[in-house]
């Protein structure tokens, strides 16, 4: 191929790229302004929430909250309870795609969470935050029974969490606030089953929260929790520390005689 032909080929492909870019730009300028012009029905708070959404959430959840295949689920109808749980505990926005979102330092403050909640709530409604102030206003014994039936199988009898399949896990409840637990039950985040208000009434939920937080505040007898996971770590400590100590003592006695 001559140098001239090569030059002509390079110019023509560059030209095609330029034309394509211009076409996309023009097409976008037709589409984009029309969407922002429609959002007149939103409250001020919801509009602020929309801004946050379009900065941080839109990549995975889509422009109309419809979700993106392989990226993120639809948020239509998830409700503000779900937004509160995911954003206020720092799970959303995701740091990276992994087995499940982990609790971390929240990215948004309370006001911004409220704005996001207002925005998402305009899409199909969904479970709302509880109106009550005191979320521990429930009977402790009943809460314990409900906790052991509905929650303990995954979250452990002392709320220490436990493993699920394929790298997922049920998180420990010892950092959870009352509202975290309430909204988690209400919205069923990620793989947790949903416990709607007809399944566990608000009174039931408050009883469970009372029980969980009572567990969290109870000091461990002997001063060491050993993960609060029960006989397995306790047995491990006895075997490794206790029996190793006895063996060492035996050796010591043997060297002295």
């Amino acid at each position, binding site marked *: 191929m001559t140098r001239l032909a090569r030059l002509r080929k390079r110019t023509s492909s560059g030209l095609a790229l330029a034309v394509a870019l211009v076409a996309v730009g023009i097409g976008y300028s037709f589409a984009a302004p029309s969407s922002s012009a429609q959002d007149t029905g939103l409250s001020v708070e919801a509009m602020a929430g929309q801004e946050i959404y379009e900065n941080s959430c839109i990549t995975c959840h889509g422009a109309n909250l419809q979700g993106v295949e392989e990226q993120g689920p639809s948020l239509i109808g998830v409700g503000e309870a779900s937004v509160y749980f995911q954003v206020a505990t720092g799970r959303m926005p995701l740091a990276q795609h992994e087995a499940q979102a982990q609790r971390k330092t929240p990215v948004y403050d309370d006001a911004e969470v409220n704005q996001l909640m207002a925005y998402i709530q305009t899409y199909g409604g969904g479970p709302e935050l509880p109106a009550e102030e005191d979320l521990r206003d429930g009977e402790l014994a009943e809460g314990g029974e409900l906790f052991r*039936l509905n929650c303990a199988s995954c979250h452990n009898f002392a709320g220490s969490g*436990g493993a699920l*399949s*394929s790298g997922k896990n049920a998180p420990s409840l010892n950092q959870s606030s009352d509202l975290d637990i309430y909204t988690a039950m209400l919205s069923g985040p990620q*793989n947790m*089953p*949903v416990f709607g208000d007809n*399944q566990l009434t608000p009174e039931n939920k408050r009883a469970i929260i009372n029980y969980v937080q009572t567990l969290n505040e*109870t*000091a461990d007898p002997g001063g060491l929790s050993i993960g609060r996971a029960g006989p397995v770590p306790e047995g491990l400590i006895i075997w490794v520390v206790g029996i190793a100590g006895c063996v060492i003592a035996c050796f010591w006695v043997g060297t002295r005689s």
Partner: protein
Amino acid sequence: MTSTSGPSQPPGGAQPMPGNPPQPGPGPSDAELARMSREDLVTLGGKMDGVEVIYSEQPVRPGSPAERRAERQVAAAFAGAGLSALAFMVIFVAWPWQVETPAGGYDLSALYTPLLGLMMGLALTLVGVGVVLWAKKLMPYEVTVQDRHEGASPEIERQTTAATLVAVGNATGIARRTLVKRSLGFGGLMLGLMAVFPLGGLIKKPGTALFETPWEPGMRLLTLGGLPIRPADMRPGALQTVFPPVEGGARSSDGVAMLIRLLPNQVDEFRPRPGQEDFHWNDFVAYSKICTHAGCPVSLYEQETARILCPCHQSQFVATDGARSIFGPATRSLPQLAVEVDADGYFVAKSDFIEPIGPAFWERST
């Protein structure tokens, strides 16, 4: 051990034979015995048994400061053991034992159990320490040797011993007195049976209990609180543990089931087991909560993957695939409970489970 010489030996018996252990010489006379000190007697006894002390040493000189020091150490250990045991009892009675944990802190009651353990351990350890110190520091260090013959006992001893045993047996007359022998056999056998017999009361034929649960057609599915369930009570992705409406149903170990509402996208993937196509009701499925491996309650439900996990041995079942086992030691699917909604809009069972719930047993066919 052969006996030493003396008047008890039968006349003409037990002449020293070749191979016999060397007989000790004639013992001291009664007058000599009376003059012997205790040490002499110990030495004599050892010699009669073929025991010889070849080395003996006192660890400390009697009356020396070292001996007094060792004695004080032993005494301190034993006294410490006694004081620890006493402290155990005092703590047991007097220490504040009722656990009261003020928010975020500990009070003395948190030390109750650890202190009890510490004192008991200290008491036992100090007894041991005292005994070891006593043996090592105050008792003489000795090396002794005892002669043992090699191989089997001499022929004469074996034959006489066997003859003695047979003679004793003959003296009872058990071989001749058949009436006594048979009645003794009968009595012994019955006594043995009597000891085993009460175990029979522990054996109970299970009947059909392993094949049936309390569920019957038309029975409502109840929550732990005894409330019936409407489809609208459960949102997609919800799980409800349900019990049969019978006496003690919420405590029955075999009737408990999980009512699961699948997510919309899971409904399309739902594949019931052959012959159980009409067991589910719209997007609701109900499975036994008892694992088919070892009978643990399987209620770790992952609503996004529709997997049911067993916490005991990590078996996994897929709710959208007839609760087929896909991981772990369980091999059978969880039995499915056929459900529908009655005229009042509440969930009811269409029948009992069609197969035995829970782990394997000999007679089960599926």
